[in-house]
Structure formats: C-alpha cells, structure tokens
C-alpha cells in the first residue's frame, strides 16, 4: 500500500470521520454537546481498557522481552521536554513557566492518538508488539515532572530553596487520575493475565473501536472550540504544534528502532513521542505552574497537534519507521 492510500484509509476510518463531524459541529456552533459525565466516563473506559490490554500483553510476552522498549519509552518521556523547552524559550520567546508547561504537555502522550495509530496499523495489516500500550503508562509521569521542574527553574538553579510545591507535583504526576488508571490497569492486566482477559474481553476489548469513535466525536468538538484561540496564541505556536510532533516523532522512531521494536512498534513509539497530552498533563501542570497560561498548551495540544496527528501524523510516522527499518 503506498503512502497516499494509507492516508486515505486513515481518513475514511469511522474514528477520523467522527472527529471531523465533531469539528464541524463546533465550528457551526451546533447545540450538540457531550455532558461532562460522559466525557469523563469515556476517558475512564479508554484508559482502563488500554492499560489492561497492555498489562495482559506484558504478562504474555514476559518482562524479559519488554523492559528494554519500556526503558526507551521512559527515556523519551524525559528527553522530549528537554528538547522542547529551549526551543520554546529561545525561538518562541515564552517565559520559563509557559515553556515548561508546553514542554510537559508534549513530553506526555495522547492515549487516543495511540489507539488511532493501532487502528491504522490494523487497517493496513502491519503487526506490532501488543505490549506497546504499556508505553503509554510510563511516559506521562517523567514528562510532567521534567516539564514542571524546567518551568520552575529547579533544574537550572539547583534546589537552592526547599520547594514545597514539588511534592504536590510529584504526587499529581504519579497519582493523577490519568497515570493512576493506566498504571493500575496495566498491573491488573499483568496479574490477572489471559484468564482475566477472557472474563472482561467483551467489555474492554470488543466494543473498544466504537467507543473510540464516539469519543473522537467529542474530541472533535473540544478541538473545534479551541480553534477560536488559534489567533490569540500567535504564529509561533502554530508552527510549533506542527513541527514538534515531527521532530519528537522522528526521535521516537529512532529510539524505537534502536530498542529493537518492529516497524509497527516503532511507529507506535513515534506516535507517542509525537503526540501531546490533554488528559494527564493539564491538571497537574495547572497546579504546579500556575503562571503558565493554559490557553497556550491546550490550544497547541488540542487545536493543532492532536488533529494533525490523527489525520496526517500517523501515516507519516509509519513512513519514517519503515525508512529506518530498511
């Protein structure tokens, strides 16, 4: 399948089309609206299902086969904020807090983008390591901690004064509901294994794609409501929102290849690296870096990078992964 037909297959998947419908609803100011409880319920479901599936896959594959790629993923989570921060500071002219906040968002990952990518791979019949969803569970915490420390200047200035807020940040980064659900479900999947999977598969696995499609309808609306802020955030952030995923994604593809992942697995690690968070990071960063304006990080994450990845990024990362594996 060539590049354009993979893009076409991606664009005509129900998930992406529902995302477009959500965008349309937001832009035309339809009265379509998801209740907050439904948004939260869908998030809960998706995170739990991803974690659990990943956990079962890890228990099947054995830790021996998993630890190396997992370490690569943790490394990515730490590395990306370090790459993004100076760019945002110097080229973007953001102050320390804002640069740290945005860096934390881009080091973190978007579980929904990840699932869209696994769908994409399934559609074009490319296999991938099924434990890959375990990556999602380990990248957010380091990225948030790193981004917050950069944003507070704790890294450059050293720990000169005892930072009371840092403890809270650590707690939020590790016990925030996104990370807790992912890591918790991962462990549950590992402990209950195949037999556990058999009993809950009909809820956590079979209807998953459809739930994702419905969730993307909502995400389309959320992203569409952010479009109005695009003007306010300025041209640099627009460019950053398109360029950063490509840079981070390429890094991810490189690391994935080095860690011995297949083309499919490499694509997924690249997707995670290229994606940015809108579930785990916003709440943690808001409290830890109150001076950062959430409009910047959320608009870039949700209004630019997320749609870009869903529509174009995924097939691109796949091409990069293929190239590196040649």
């Amino acid at each position, binding site marked *: 399948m060539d590049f354009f037909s993979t893009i076409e297959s991606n664009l005509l998947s129900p998930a992406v089309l529902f995302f477009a419908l959500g965008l349309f609803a937001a832009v035309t100011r339809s009265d379509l609206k998801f209740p*907050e409880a439904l948004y939260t319920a869908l998030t809960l479901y998706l995170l739990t299902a991803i974690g659990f599936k990943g956990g079962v896959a890890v228990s099947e594959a054995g830790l021996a086969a998993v630890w190396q790629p997992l370490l690569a993923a943790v490394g990515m989570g730490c590395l990306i904020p370090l790459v993004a921060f100076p760019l945002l500071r110097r080229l973007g002219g953001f102050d320390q807090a804002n640069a740290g906040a945005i860096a934390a968002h881009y080091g973190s990952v978007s579980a929904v983008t990840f699932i869209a990518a696994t769908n994409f791979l399934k559609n074009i019949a490319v296999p991938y390591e099924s434990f890959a969803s375990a990556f999602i569970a380990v990248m957010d915490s380091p990225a948030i901690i790193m981004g917050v420390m950069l944003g507070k200047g704790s890294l450059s200035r050293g720990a000169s004064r005892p930072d009371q807020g840092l403890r809270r940040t650590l707690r939020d980064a590790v016990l925030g509901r996104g990370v807790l659900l992912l890591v918790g479900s991962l462990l549950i999947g590992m402990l209950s294994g195949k037999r556990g999977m058999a009993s809950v598969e009909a809820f956590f696995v079979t209807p998953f794609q459809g739930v994702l499609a419905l969730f993307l309808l909502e995400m389309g609306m959320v992203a569409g409501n952010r479009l109005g*802020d695009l003007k306010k955030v300025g041209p640099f952030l627009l460019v950053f929102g398109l360029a950063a995923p490509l840079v981070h994604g390429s890094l991810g593809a490189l690391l994935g290849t080095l860690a011995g992942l297949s083309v499919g697995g490499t694509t997924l690690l690249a997707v995670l690296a290229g994606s940015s968070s809108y579930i785990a990071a916003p*709440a943690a960063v808001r*409290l830890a870096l*109150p001076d950062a304006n959430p*409009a910047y990080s959320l608009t870039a994450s949700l209004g630019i990078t997320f749609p870009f990845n869903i529509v174009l990024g995924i097939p691109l990362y796949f091409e990069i992964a293929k190239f590196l594996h040649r």
Partner: protein
Amino acid sequence: MSLHPMKLVTVICESVLEEQVVELLRDCGVQGHTAFDVRGSGSQGLRNAEMRECGNVQIEVIVKPEAASSLLENLRAKFFEHFAMVAYESEVRVLRPQKF
C-alpha cells in the same frame, strides 16, 4: 425563632483548585462548605464544563460576619494572581448560628 446575620462567601474558580480552596477554608477555621460544578465565562475566556480539566466550580461558605473579610483576604493572597477566580460576600440570616 430568631435569625442570625451571617456572611455568605462565594468563590468561583477552576475545578483543579477545589481541593486547595477547601483546605484554605479549613485552615481559616470554617466549619463547612457547599460546592457544585458550573460553567462560565470571564476575563480568561469560556470555561465550559465539558472537560473536567478546564471546568469551573462554585464554592459557597457561610461564616461569621467578622470572619468573612479575612477569608476573602486569604483567598486573594493565595490565588488571585495566578488563577481564574471570582469571590464575593453577601448577607444572609441563618437559623442555629452556633453551627458556623
């Protein structure tokens, strides 16, 4: 039956702050509070309730008249600089003043 004048202090802020505001209330010696999720707009733009991460919460507390302004002052000092927040007081008359 007699009614006793009290102050009702209302705070509207980002949902992520709820825990910290309630902590501050407790530190100020306030005995109780009531909270509910709201949506709204203000200087920081629209805050619809769709994503909890960007939601708003309204917190209402009844306090002794003399405690209201110090409570507001504490809120101002701790949160006003960095966060979307609106706070105001009004007069109410309660039964059972010893509760508050």
